[in-house]
């Protein structure tokens, strides 16, 4: 800290920050080149990359939900994955009742929004300002509760949900399943819509202001409490998108199908920076591709996937707790 007193040291600190940003972009650029070359060399590599990106988009969407909530209320929502799982079951039920897939999809998003908003209003608001531990434990309680409710209503058995995409097409000799292209498209589309909402609308501006400086936002007439509740609603919508799109890639619907995804979403959020929405999505894609390639080429270490993801997470937390994009986030949304 004391080094910052001299202007020279300040300059040096800024230089390091700039150097860090350049390193991050070089790293990402290098990764992209590596993937591109790999895809051109081998069709198997290309297929693994595409399916990895698709699954990674789902992780990214869930990670974005976590980041939105963290930024707004400084709560890490351990129930985010289970909420996504529960909303996927709702979509399943709606389809069983005769709705088409996309009707059920839209209805589920609306239900998820209401559910997320209600949760914030009823159980999170009272503990939000108390302590990190209290908020974490409430979200853990929600985790168990949602799990229990889903098991109660639908049972723990395996269900089959129809996939909205089938077939495949050929791209330069690489066989790409519609499923993966569709996942990637829908998830990234929804993420873009949420981004546009935050970036270009008055409501989004109010939500950002409420998250950044609640007291000052209130003085400008922003109803901060409502903004935070809406933030939870939007996070639940992103989670629902992640759940519904992730499910077909897992083939089966079970009450535990989002738990591993939540783990990877945590890793993605930390990788990108807990305060960085863009970083969460990039982090999700990176982890999706990385794990898919790992499982594809080194099947003997499959059981180490989770510990590995977390060794990475731990390393990032220690070396750069703000994540890859953490610094940039300070001045930009």
């Amino acid at each position, binding site marked *: 800290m004391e080094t910052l007193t001299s202007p020279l040291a300040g300059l040096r600190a800024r230089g390091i920050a700039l150097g860090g940003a350049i390193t991050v972009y070089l790293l990402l650029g290098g990764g992209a080149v590596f993937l591109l070359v790999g895809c051109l060399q081998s069709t198997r590599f290309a297929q693994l990359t595409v399916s990895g990106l698709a699954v990674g988009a789902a992780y990214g969407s869930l990670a974005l939900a976590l980041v939105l909530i*963290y930024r707004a209320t*400084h*709560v*890490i929502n*351990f129930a985010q994955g289970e909420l996504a799982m529960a909303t996927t079951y709702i979509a399943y039920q709606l389809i069983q009742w005769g709705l088409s897939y996309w009707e059920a999809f839209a209805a589920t998003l609306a239900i998820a929004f209401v559910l997320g908003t209600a949760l914030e209003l009823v*159980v999170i608001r*009272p*503990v939000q300002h*108390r302590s*990190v*531990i*209290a908020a*974490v*434990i*409430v979200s*853990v*309680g*929600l*985790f*168990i*509760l*949602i*799990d*229990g*409710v889903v*098991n*109660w209503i639908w*049972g*723990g058995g395996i269900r089959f949900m129809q996939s909205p995409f089938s077939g495949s097409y050929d791209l330069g000799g690489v066989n790409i399943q519609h499923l993966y292209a569709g996942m990637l498209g829908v998830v990234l589309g929804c993420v873009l819509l949420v981004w546009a909402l935050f970036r270009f609308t008055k409501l989004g501006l109010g939500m950002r202001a409420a998250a950044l400086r609640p007291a000052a936002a209130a003085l400008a007439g922003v109803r901060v409490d409502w903004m935070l509740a809406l933030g939870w609603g939007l996070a639940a919508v992103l989670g629902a998108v992640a759940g519904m799109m992730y499910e077909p890639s897992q083939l089966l619907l079970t009450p535990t199908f989002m*738990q591993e995804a939540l*783990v990877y979403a*945590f*890793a993605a959020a*930390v990788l990108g920076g*807990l305060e960085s929405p863009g970083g969460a999505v990039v982090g999700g894609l990176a982890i999706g591709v990385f794990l898919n390639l790992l499982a594809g080429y080194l099947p003997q*270490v499959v*059981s*180490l996937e*989770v*510990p590995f993801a*977390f*060794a990475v*997470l*731990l390393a990032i*937390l*220690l070396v750069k*707790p703000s994540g890859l994009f953490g610094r940039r986030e300070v001045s930009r949304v």
Partner: protein
Amino acid sequence: MRGRLPALGSIAAVAVLIAVLPFTLSSYNVSLVAQVGIFFVAVLGLNILTGYSGQISIGHGAFMAIGGYTSAVMSRDHHTNLIVTMLMAFAICFVLGLLVGLPALRLSGAYLALATFALAISVPQLPLQWSTFLGGTGGVQSHTTVSDRWIYGAAWSCSAILFLLAWLILRGRVGRAFRAVRDSEIAATASGIELSLYKTLAFGISAAYAGVAGVLFVMATNGFAQPTEFGIILSLQILIGAAVAGLGSLWGILAGAAFVGLLPQVSTSVPVIGSDHGRDVVFGLMVVLVMLALPDGFAGLLARLRALVRA
């Protein structure tokens, strides 16, 4: 636990109650109360960490797993006495706790929660990879198995010994340093307290407690150490127990241990919901409600009641 030994009367009451219970309860209920004893040890340990150094851990199930596997492997390969394995688990987890505590120094709040969550998820995966030594999904079977009553006695003896140990640690220099660190890190550093030393130490002690709880836990599952038994839920249960307990009261820790040890079992057969699913619904709901109603846990409730009585 807070400086002076809590009123001897209440300790004696608890001790007598625990000594008499096995003679009046059915075998099933004895194993339930033994379960509470196991959680008492783990919650006591986590209470030292969160309550006295202000750090959070969602990863203490990992230390329970390490302790449990230590005991099972030693028993399988060398037929070691279970008490000796307990000491071993205590030592190993203490050292590993120190090792985890070091990087944890750089993290706080939400970040520490995530890192320890990572630990809880990762450790149970390790036996799957090194399956010849650690038994894979099938788990490790200890050489010796023990009766419910034996576990009951062991669990509550450990509870008593470790409670005494915690009291001895916390009443002296170390305890004062812990409290100073919790209340204000900056002030503690300014008054010459080696911050990193004490925070790491708190991590090590609480991990060692979890290790002993892990040994007992494996004994209670017929001497089987299995990866699925040490899932994330276990870590969450310990954390919930510590939160329900609140800070530094014997009764609080008992309440927290009973909450996570008994509630899931008791609520398996809830009327309307029925069957197994009732368990999670009731447990989850209770966790949320208790956190909303008792912000400072059971210990906070007791303190408030005491203030009411006095007033």
